[in-house]
C-alpha cells in the first residue's frame, strides 16, 4: 500500500474544484487513457485577463493524480498568470505534504497542464509532453508515454534529478518498455553538464555573508526537493560559523532515520560550500 500523507488522502477523498468551467478563458489538457492518467484544467480570468479567479479540473488517474490536481487548483486560484507559471511541481508536492517518489509524476502532470493552459491562452508554443499534443516542442524520447527531450530536460533541471529511475518517477519516461533509458541517461549528463555540479565552482574563500547565502541556497535547491519527495522537509534554524542548525519537519520530524538525513545534509553542504561544515539537528 502506498504511504500517502493525510493531505493526499483528504484531497483524493474530497477533491476541491472538480468540474468544468463552460466559459473558461484557458484550458490545458495533458495525458491520455493509454498513459493511465490525464488531467484537463480550466482557468477563468478576471476582467483584466491577468488574474486567475477560478480553476477547475477533471482527472483520470490514481489517488495522487487526483490529489495533485486538487492541490494545483487551490494553489493557483487568485494568482496572476505569471505567478501561476512560477508554481513548480515541487510546490504541488509540498502542498500535499509530499508524494512518494514513484508518484512525483502526478505533480509534474499538474504543473504541465497549467503551462499548457497558459501557453494555449497566450498563443505561444506548447511545452512538449504528451500524445495529446501533436504540436509539442522537441523530439520524442519515450515512445511508450510520448515524452519529449525538451520536457525531460526541463524536469531533470528543475528537480535536480540524477538517475534514470528518478526521471521515470517524475515523468513516467522509461517506465514502459525501458528502451529509452540510455537516452534518458544521456539527457541527464547533458543537463547536469550544462549546470556542472557546484563542487567544481566551490568558492576558495567565503565571506561570512556569502557562506550563509550559499548554505541557504544549497538547502533550497539541493536538499529540500529531495526531502519533499519522501514527504519530509527541514528548516534552517541558525548558522554559527561552520555549524548549521536545522530542524526537521513533516515526515522527517521524528523519523527514525533523521540521523542519516542530517548526515546527508552535511555531505551536501560540504560538497557545495566548505569541508568544515557541521550540521546539527535541533528542536525548533
Amino acid at each position, binding site marked *: 500500500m*502506498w504511504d500517502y500523507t493525510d493531505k493526499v488522502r483528504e484531497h*483524493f477523498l474530497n477533491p476541491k474544484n472538480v468540474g468544468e468551467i463552460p466559459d473558461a478563458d484557458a484550458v490545458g489538457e495533458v495525458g491520455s487513457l493509454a498513459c*493511465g492518467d490525464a488531467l484537463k484544467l480550466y482557468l477563468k480570468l478576471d476582467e483584466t485577463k491577468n488574474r486567475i479567479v477560478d480553476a477547475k479540473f*477533471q*482527472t*483520470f*488517474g490514481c*489517488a495522487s*493524480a487526483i490529489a495533485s490536481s486538487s492541490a494545483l487548483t487551490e494553489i493557483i486560484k487568485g494568482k496572476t498568470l505569471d505567478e501561476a507559471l512560477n508554481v513548480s511541481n515541487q510546490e504541488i508536492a509540498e502542498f500535499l505534504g509530499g508524494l512518494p517518489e*514513484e508518484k512525483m509524476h502526478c505533480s509534474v502532470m499538474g504543473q504541465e497542464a497549467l503551462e499548457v493552459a497558459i501557453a494555449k491562452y497566450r498563443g505561444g508554443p506548447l511545452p512538449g509532453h504528451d500524445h495529446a499534443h501533436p504540436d509539442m516542442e522537441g523530439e520524442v524520447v519515450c515512445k511508450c508515454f510520448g515524452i519529449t527531450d525538451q520536457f525531460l530536460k526541463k524536469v531533470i533541471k528543475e528537480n535536480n534529478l540524477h538517475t534514470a529511475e528518478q526521471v521515470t518517477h517524475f515523468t513516467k519516461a522509461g517506465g514502459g518498455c525501458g528502451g529509452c533509458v540510455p537516452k534518458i541517461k544521456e539527457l541527464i549528463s547533458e543537463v547536469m553538464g550544462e549546470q556542472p555540479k557546484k563542487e567544481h565552482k566551490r568558492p576558495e574563500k567565503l565571506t561570512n555573508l556569502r557562506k550563509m547565502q550559499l548554505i541557504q541556497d544549497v538547502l533550497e535547491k539541493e536538499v529540500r526537493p529531495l526531502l519533499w519527495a519522501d514527504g519530509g522537509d527541514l528548516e534552517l534554524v541558525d548558522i554559527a560559523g561552520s555549524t548549521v542548525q536545522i530542524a526537521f519537519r513533516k515526515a522527517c520530524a521524528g523519523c527514525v532515520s533523521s540521523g542519516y538525513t542530517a548526515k546527508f545534509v552535511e555531505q551536501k553542504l560540504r560538497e557545495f560550500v566548505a569541508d568544515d561544515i557541521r550540521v546539527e539537528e535541533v528542536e525548533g
Partner: protein
Amino acid sequence: MREIYADNNATTKVDEVVFEEMRPYFCELYGNPSSMHFFGGQVQKKVDEARRRTADLLGAQPEEIVFTACGTESDNAAIRSALEVFPERRHIITTRVEHPAVLTVCRNLSKRGYRVSELSVDGEGRLDLNELRSVIDEDTAIVSVMYANNETGVVFPIEEIGAIVKDKGALFHTDAVQAVGKIPLNMADSTIDMLSLSGHKLHAPKGIGSLYLRKGVPFRPFMVGGHQERSRRAGTENTAGIIALGKACELAGQNLELENTRVRAMRDRLESEILRRISNVQVNGGKAERLPNTVSVAFEFVEGEAILLLLSEKGICASSGSACTSGSLEPSHVLRAMGVPFTCAHGSIRFSLSRFTTDDDIDTIIRELPPIIAHLRELSPFGREFLARSN
C-alpha cells in the same frame, strides 16, 4: 471497520482449525523431527501425517511431496532442477501470463544462454496449443505452465499440454498455487512431473509451500545441506508450517465441492450484478474456463488504484492489475498479454473469494461499487465525455 476480504488470490485467512493444529508445535512440541529421542520422534510422526494429507489432496504418494518455504521456492527449484538434469537441453517454454515466480526465473536464465519461449494468449487469456507444438523440440528441457492464472482465474488445459510435452521427452512443471483446493487434482493419472503449491493460498500460514515431485523424475536439489526431505530440500523443517499445510490440505479436500458450488455461485452473482449495475465493464477472461472464486473486471475510463482506495474506505479489500498500485507504469503483464483495450486496462479490479466469504460480503460489494465507479467517471475527463454521449 469490519473488513470485507475479497483478495484471496493474494493471501487467505488461516483457518482457525488449521491454527489450532499447528499451535502446539511452537512452545510445547518443538522437537526437531530428525532427532533420535522421543521428543523429536513425535513431531516426525505429525510431519509424516501432514505429508500424507498433502499427497491425498493431489492424488499423489507421500514420498512425492517435498515441503518448501513457498510457491516461489517450489517454482525456482523445479525449473533449475530440470536444467541441471538435462544439461544438454537449452530451451525453456513458459507463458507470457505466468506469475513472476516463474517468469523472472526464465527471463534471468535467458540472459545466461538459455532459449526461452513465452507462449502468447488470446483476448480471453487462453493458450494456443499449436504454438506450443511449433516451439517445443528435442532441445526443450522444461515446460512450465501455470494451472490457473492468479489475475484472471483462467484455467489452462494442463493435461493436454502435458501430453505434448511428454511426446518430446521434456519435463513438465505447473505452478498450481491458485488451483490447488479449487480444482480436483489426481497426480496418479496425470502428465505433470512437478507441481508447486503454496500454503497461504489455501488457509494455511505464509512461509510454507510444497513441490510435488513425481516418483522417478530426476531431481537436483536447490537447497543443499542436511538430509531433510530425503535430501531434496535441506534445512530444518518448518514443522508447525508443515503440520498446518497438511491440515489445510485435508480441509481443502473436504471443501472442494463447496468451492465449486457455493463460492462459485457467489462469484457468479457478484459478476452478473456488476455487469447489470455498471455500464462499460468487461470481464477479463470471461469466456474462458476460470477458477470458481475469481473475477477480474475492467471498468472503462477510471483508474484501478483510485477504485481500490475508495473500496478500501468502505472496508472492501480487492486487488488490481493496474499500473499505479504496483509502482510500475503499465497495466499488468497479464492484461497486456491479453490485449485488454487501453480504455479499461488501467481500470481492472480483481475480486477473489474464499469459503469464508459471505452473501453479505457480496451484497456490500454490489452496493458500494457502483457509486464509486460513477464518482470516478464523474471526475474523469473521459468518463464525462462518455456520460455526455450516453445521455
